[in-house]
């Protein structure tokens, strides 16, 4: 009681200095509140954004493993590498199903590709110098580059990553396209191929395999490839000009019809957590995955979607640290001056028998009382300000998300249709609805963080008082005064 009473008297007596300390702490508190609120909001936003992404795992080449004996300067090295690429194992749908039977995998989809020649249509001539395999399951028998067309079957809409990413955009589509796209011999063809062969929606095309079997498909959509990013230099056509898109069942039906037809499968597994990738990979190897393959995740892609928010969060943290360092130094210096000014008082109080501990507690109490008031005011002002800042942050994010939604819908032909797994948000779509309320920005967590930061700062800056009180000899102080 004596300590608090004396502390209160001192605060009232040194109004100017305490107001200055209060203002500094208020500014720090204000900055802390805004920063913590932004940081927490950004963190929620990032978590939510990431959760909007499926945690995807695909199978890719273990290039490091494959290239480890590769010496480009020697013919033998090049041969050995080529052999490795040619001899990697190929996998079937049943292999993928076997892999997918894991506790870590929630669902999966795949694309299933096969090479066919034109029967009723002609291949659009393109220049290609690539004879390297281009994906998982590419066996030496399946040399799609030797055929006119690549028929790619998607197991579901979620598998149609090129449309989701915007590489392909649907330019024409039949009204019922998405109702029938995954249930029969329906295809989407490249706009350039359509123009080359004078094809339009609902036209039927015939393709044939190398054994002469013909297969008929109906065109239900025409897509175009984003030229800026994907057109090969010095080429008339885009890379996908001879890619015909259908569903995986249609490709399976083809391979069932002709066993010589070799297909390549590109599976995507949705996992429960990125932390389980290594365990899953070991499981895949045990189930027969070639060691020249490894698992790749879309974590980086998911991260890249929130990079701007992360930047804001990281900027906030830096700002907070700088504010705390500067604020801490200023408070420390004020405390030093305070102690020097009050040296005589300390001497007198020590002489009349007030212990060092009580005196230290009195000085710290003074600072804590001022700090609590300033922190409360700062938290209030910060809460009001952070609302605006966070709203602005949210508005930008919502805007950017909406733009992305519209863009993906546009890529699929401008129709708002449901996908196989709950609509379009299955990929790359942040859930923005969670952020239309700002009430949770300055919550109890922020206030507790603020309180602990503020009081820690006060205690650290009080070290000057504590050390000085321990060191001062009352007699020396009083002698100096005399």
């Amino acid at each position, binding site marked *: 009681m*004596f300590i608090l*009473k*004396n502390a209160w008297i001192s605060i009232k*007596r040194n109004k100017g200095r305490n107001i200055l300390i209060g203002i500094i702490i208020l500014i720090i508190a204000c900055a802390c509140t805004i920063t913590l609120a932004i940081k927490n909001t950004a963190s929620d936003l990032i978590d939510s954004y990431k959760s909007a992404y499926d945690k995807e795992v695909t199978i890719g080449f273990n290039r490091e493993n494959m290239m480890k004996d590769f010496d480009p300067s020697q013919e033998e090295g090049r041969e050995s590498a080529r052999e490795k690429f040619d001899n990697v194992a190929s996998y079937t749908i049943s292999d993928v199903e076997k892999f997918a039977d894991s506790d870590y995998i929630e669902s999966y989809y795949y694309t299933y590709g096969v090479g066919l020649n034109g029967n009723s249509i002609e291949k659009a001539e393109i220049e290609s110098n690539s004879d390297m395999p281009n994906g998982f399951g590419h066996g030496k028998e399946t040399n799609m580059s030797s055929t006119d067309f690549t028929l790619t079957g998607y197991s579901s809409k979620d598998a149609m990553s090129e449309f989701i990413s915007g590489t392909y955009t649907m330019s024409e589509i039949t009204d019922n396209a998405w109702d029938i796209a995954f249930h029969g011999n329906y295809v989407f063809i490249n706009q350039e191929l359509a123009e080359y062969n004078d094809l339009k929606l609902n036209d039927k095309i015939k393709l044939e395999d190398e054994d002469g079997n013909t297969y008929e498909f109906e065109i239900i959509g025409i897509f175009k490839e984003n030229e800026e990013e994907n057109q090969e230099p010095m080429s008339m056509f885009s890379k996908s000009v001879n890619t015909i898109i259908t569903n995986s069942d249609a490709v399976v039906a083809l391979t069932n019809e002709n066993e010589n037809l070799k297909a390549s499968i590109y599976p995507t597994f949705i996992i429960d957590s990125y932390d389980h990738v290594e365990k899953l990979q070991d499981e895949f190897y045990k189930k027969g995955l070639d060691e020249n393959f490894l698992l790749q995740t879309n974590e980086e892609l998911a991260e890249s979607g929130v990079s701007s928010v992360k930047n804001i969060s990281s900027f906030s943290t830096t700002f907070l640290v700088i504010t705390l360092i500067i604020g801490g130094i200023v408070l420390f210096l004020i405390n030093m001056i305070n102690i020097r000014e009050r040296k005589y*008082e300390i*001497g*007198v*109080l020590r*002489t*009349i*028998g*007030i*212990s060092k501990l009580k005196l230290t507690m009195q000085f710290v109490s003074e600072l804590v009382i001022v700090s609590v008031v300033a922190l409360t005011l700062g938290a209030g002002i910060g809460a009001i300000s952070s609302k605006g800042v966070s709203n602005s942050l949210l508005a930008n994010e919502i805007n950017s998300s909406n733009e992305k939604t519209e863009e993906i819908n546009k890529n699929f032909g401008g129709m708002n249709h449901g996908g196989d797994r709950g609509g379009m948000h299955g990929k790359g779509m942040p859930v923005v609805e969670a952020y239309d309320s700002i009430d949770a920005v300055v919550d109890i967590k922020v206030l507790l963080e603020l309180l602990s930061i503020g009081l820690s700062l006060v205690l650290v800056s009080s070290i000057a008082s504590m050390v000085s009180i321990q060191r001062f*000899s*009352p*007699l020396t102080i*009083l*002698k100096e*005064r*005399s």
Partner: protein
Amino acid sequence: MENKKKNNGVSNDHLGKDVSKKERKIKNKESKEVKESNPFPKDIILSIKNASYRYSDAEEDDYALKNVSFDFESGKLYAIRGRSGTGKTTLLSLISGLEKCSEGEIIFDGKSLKEMNLDKYRNSDIGIVFQSYNLLPFMTAVENIILSMDANGLKIKNKKEKAIELMKKVGLKASYANRKVLRLSGGEQQRVAIARSLSYNPKMIIADEPTGNLDKQTETEILEIFKKLAHEENKCVIIVTHSQNVCDTVDKIYNLKKVQEK
């Protein structure tokens, strides 16, 4: 004789110049009798035994104070006299527990200061009065006195009334109670300092040149207060001084000499 004790390498000289020789003789007789039966006689409140003090940064044999042995009794007014540099203030800081003896010991009321909580000792057992008063200038007279009561942990209802009572006791008007001490004269400030030192009724008052900044008239008045405290309230009052006026007033004088003069 008590006041003629001589130590090896003594730096101090106990003149023990009693104002009343008759009284001194009686006391000495009583004291001797007590000493024979008790190593720490009841009326001796403070005993300094071969106390030496050397500053922490001083050389090994560079003492500010060496082998000082004095005894102080309750109900007596003492003066410690000496020229500048003889260690008067050092001795006072040892007695008041602001410094600790390098060698020897000080015994208060039967207990060595080494074993005591010196903060508690300063805010309960002794009252200290300084030449420069050492009041807190931003406080009123009464607040300074109450602060001392608070430091002691004194639990009484009307601290302010008690403080004003103390002020009156040392010759200050009650109307000065709420006056900032800086607006009081030197003599008045010294009276507040004395009142403060009395606030928790200590057994001993230690004063360092309490009249050094005061005129003759005020000095006499202040000394009268100390005299009353010793003789009427049975307190042991020790005044460190080089004022002849003070020496003429006290019951006993201890002289300090410079260590080099021994």
